């Protein structure tokens, strides 16, 4: 019951935000100089098509009416057509978002597996090398351009050593993608039990995941370390110590208490990476959603961009809801 109220309150905040995002992107679209109908359909459009979209979008009507029409279309799942792919944007994005989400999710998992232990150790061993290392690692990781790091990895692990798969998409050319269940090749090939495909998928994932994971481990280490520092000095941990609890118990309690902060930084990184992984996608020809949106921006193909913005906003919304549920599970104080 408390849970439902909690989520409800959250939605109350988030739904207007979602509306705001759609509104802002709509009016941004309106700011683009030139004929919007032409932008929608691309330079190759016929005059009839242009006239048609004009009346469909109600370009002769007032701005507000146009916005309402646009909202109705978005709500019914119609994001328009991309003139580059000549397909509905919805269909394109349904294919490409799983690729992006797969990349981002695995990268963050890797970043967590690396970042949390390092952060905890850095906090526990104040005078150790690992403490110094983690301080500067955070700064350095935030400073390296991820697209450049990806290139360096390609050069070292593909060009020179020949260990990694070619940086050309998610699978070798000769291998067919697994039957679509989730859209993530990683999961789908596991479900299909197709080991050859799975190995190939993993080989292609390795370098981009390494790139994004190493860079994003920085903020995770920093957050883990600073919250653990704060908690290990906190009243209740000191009290637990003076009750004679063992070091393992102490660390476990401190870590449990620092989980909300770690969760927060992960959700921030996640929502950033949905759009921010685009350059790494380009480097590895990943064919994800960010890349699709980017090519939309660069080729005046506006529907994919709008579609991408709406989609990522919705995904962020779902993400924040999941995070809220996790907060709720961790912290009993939220339960009433």
């Amino acid at each position, binding site marked *: 019951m408390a849970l439902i109220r909690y989520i409800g309150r959250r939605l109350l905040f988030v739904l207007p935000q979602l509306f705001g995002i759609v509104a802002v992107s709509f009016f941004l679209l309106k700011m683009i100089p030139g004929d919007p109908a032409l932008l929608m359909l691309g330079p190759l459009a016929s005059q009839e098509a242009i006239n048609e979209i004009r009346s469909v979008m109600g370009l002769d009507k007032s701005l507000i009416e146009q916005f309402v029409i646009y909202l109705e279309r978005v709500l019914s799942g119609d994001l328009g057509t991309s003139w580059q792919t000549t397909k509905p944007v919805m269909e394109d994005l349904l294919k490409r978002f799983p690729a992006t989400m797969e990349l981002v999710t695995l990268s963050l998992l890797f970043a967590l597996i690396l970042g949390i232990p390092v952060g905890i150790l850095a906090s526990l061993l104040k005078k150790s090398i690992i403490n110094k290392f983690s301080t500067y690692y955070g700064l350095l990781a935030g400073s390296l351009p991820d697209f450049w790091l990806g290139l360096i990895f390609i050069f070292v692990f593909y060009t020179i050593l020949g260990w990694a798969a070619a940086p050309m998409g998610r699978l070798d050319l000769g291998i067919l993608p697994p039957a679509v269940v989730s859209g993530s090749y990683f999961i789908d090939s596991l479900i299909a039990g197709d080991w050859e495909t799975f190995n190939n998928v993993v080989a292609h994932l390795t370098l981009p995941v390494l790139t994004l994971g190493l860079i994003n481990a920085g903020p995770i280490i920093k957050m883990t370390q600073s919250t653990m520092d704060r908690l290990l*000095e906190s009243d209740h941990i000191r009290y637990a110590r003076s009750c*004679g609890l063992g070091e393992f118990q102490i660390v476990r309690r401190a870590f449990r208490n620092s989980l909300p902060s770690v969760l927060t930084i992960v959700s921030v990184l996640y929502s950033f990476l949905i759009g921010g992984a685009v350059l790494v996608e380009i480097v590895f020809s990943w064919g994800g959603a960010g890349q699709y949106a980017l090519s939309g921006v660069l080729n005046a193909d506006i529907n994919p961009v709008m579609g991408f913005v709406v989609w990522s906003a919705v995904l962020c919304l779902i993400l924040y809801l999941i995070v809220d549920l996790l907060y709720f599970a961790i912290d009993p104080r939220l339960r009433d």
Partner: protein
Amino acid sequence: MTDSISLSLNNLTVDYPGYKGSGTIAVKDVSFSIEKGKVLGLVGESGAGKTSIARAITRQLVEPGEITAGEIIFENKNIVSMSQKELRKYLGSQISLIVPNPKSELDPLLTIGRQLGDVVKTHLKLNNKEAREAVLKVLEAVQIPDHNSRYSAYPHELSGGMAQRVIIAMSLICNPKFVISDDATSGLDVTVQREIMKLMQNIIKEKDLSVLFITRDIGLAAHFCDHLGLLFRGQIVEIAPINSFFKNPIHPYSLALLSAFSHSVKWRKVYSTDPQKWSKEFFINGNVPDSMIEVEKGHLVRMIR
């Protein structure tokens, strides 16, 4: 002789080093001993160093505090020189600490049953079922109403008084020999304070505990203790058996405190709080001297003759 002593401090000094070497000496050269089954009250105003002493005994001083000199002898072992591992065996099981502001001292994410259970499981090696029984028993002993459902309550669901009872339960659950109570009732309403004090008094009597009872309220200490020590700026200025202290308080600071708590207009006029003006047997340029003098048996006063 030593067998009858539960805990003694010998010349304990606690320093919080500052950034330029000259830090705050929060506790200076403090010595006392507490006999088994007896209660020593330690009274002093805020900032006198009471908490520093309590934390020094459990070796949990807040950064950058450290014990720079002295010994803490518990059952013929020096706590100051113990390894962390050995120390951990004593803390919570033989020596336990009752802290003020109980709500911030409990882990907000765990039920109190779990937190109490963790302590017994660590020290007494009980299994889950036995631990649960032990926890329920101790919750009952500290008179927590409806203890079966409180077992699975979280700290934020408790009132201040309840949380204080939980802390007391935590300190008793392993049947310790020595309990430190640091200003245990300072954050509570007066009525709740009374109940908690009564509870502690009963438990101390019943279990024959040795106690270091730290408080700012000399009146409270009067009802409670066998001996009384007065802490002034990190140093003990007067320490005596309770009867001797109240019959014959000598140090001006003792008198000032007594007058403040007894609302006596006469005394308050006599003793100004400015140490510069106080008698020079007790103060040298506003500082207390290094020597202590035994005026009666067991009644020591910091003064020069």
